[in-house]
């Protein structure tokens, strides 16, 4: 069921730090668009755009109650894969940053290497 195309859509959705932070907030429980916009210095319409991307990636569901439209995180194996891949990406990104620092240090010590 998990196709490379679906994973691509998920990665695109996860590539944005605001969307990742929205997912982190929704892990703690449902929230309305207004509640999600509160911690960020961006407008509710901007948050709605992010929610649309997360919805299209299948990572969140949004209720239809006219006033509130609460959002919740979608559980399921595909979403587990997305969370795992994000964790993997973050870990290796940090590792390569540290490797970068080491390489710069080694070249300062022996510039002829």
């Amino acid at each position, binding site marked *: 069921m998990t196709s490379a195309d679906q994973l691509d859509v998920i990665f695109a959705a996860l590539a944005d730090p605001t969307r990742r932070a929205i997912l*982190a907030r929704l892990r703690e429980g449902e929230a309305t668009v207004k509640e999600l916009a509160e911690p960020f210095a961006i407008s509710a319409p901007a948050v709605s755009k992010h929610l649309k991307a997360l919805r299209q990636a299948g990572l969140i569901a949004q209720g239809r109650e006219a006033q509130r439209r609460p959002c919740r995180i979608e559980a399921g194996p595909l979403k587990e894969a997305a969370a795992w891949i994000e964790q993997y990406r973050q*870990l290796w990104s940090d590792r390569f940053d*540290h*490797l970068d620092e*080491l390489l710069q240090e080694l070249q300062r010590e022996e510039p002829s290497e």
Partner: protein
Amino acid sequence: MTAAAKRQMTLSTPSDLEITLTRAFDAPRALVFKAITTPDYVRRWWGAGHLDVTTCEFEPRAGGTWRFAGQTPDGMEIAFFGEISEFDPPAGLVYTEAFDVPEIRDRPSTVTVRLREESGVTALTTTSRFQSVEDRDAVIASGMEGGAAASYDALEALLPEIK
């Protein structure tokens, strides 16, 4: 001398069994190769602030074995190990990698590492390939159990970036 813009890693999924990471480094590839295959060097970046590295063993040859392990801030031991099938400095290497927990340690991925150098910049590409969809799903499920807290922390740590 111009300073290079801060470099970023990219992640892609060429297929539903593969994860490819690419990263550029301002260093000759012979040095990058050394830095990723010499235990005393690996020790200095593999923990990356997440793990306190406790074991760092690597036999630099085809047929050699390797093992990296570390402790999380909560005292949990995390270890990966495998066998090296190709060792071709400074162009690259191929090895197996498994997470050392029951039921997952028998599901190694194959990792192919390639280094290409141009004008003093080395492009490092690593592709990890699961052997099967079952392996992939088991690794992910096991990773989420043990690493769920770590992943939520990683997500929450990103919040201050938004302001």
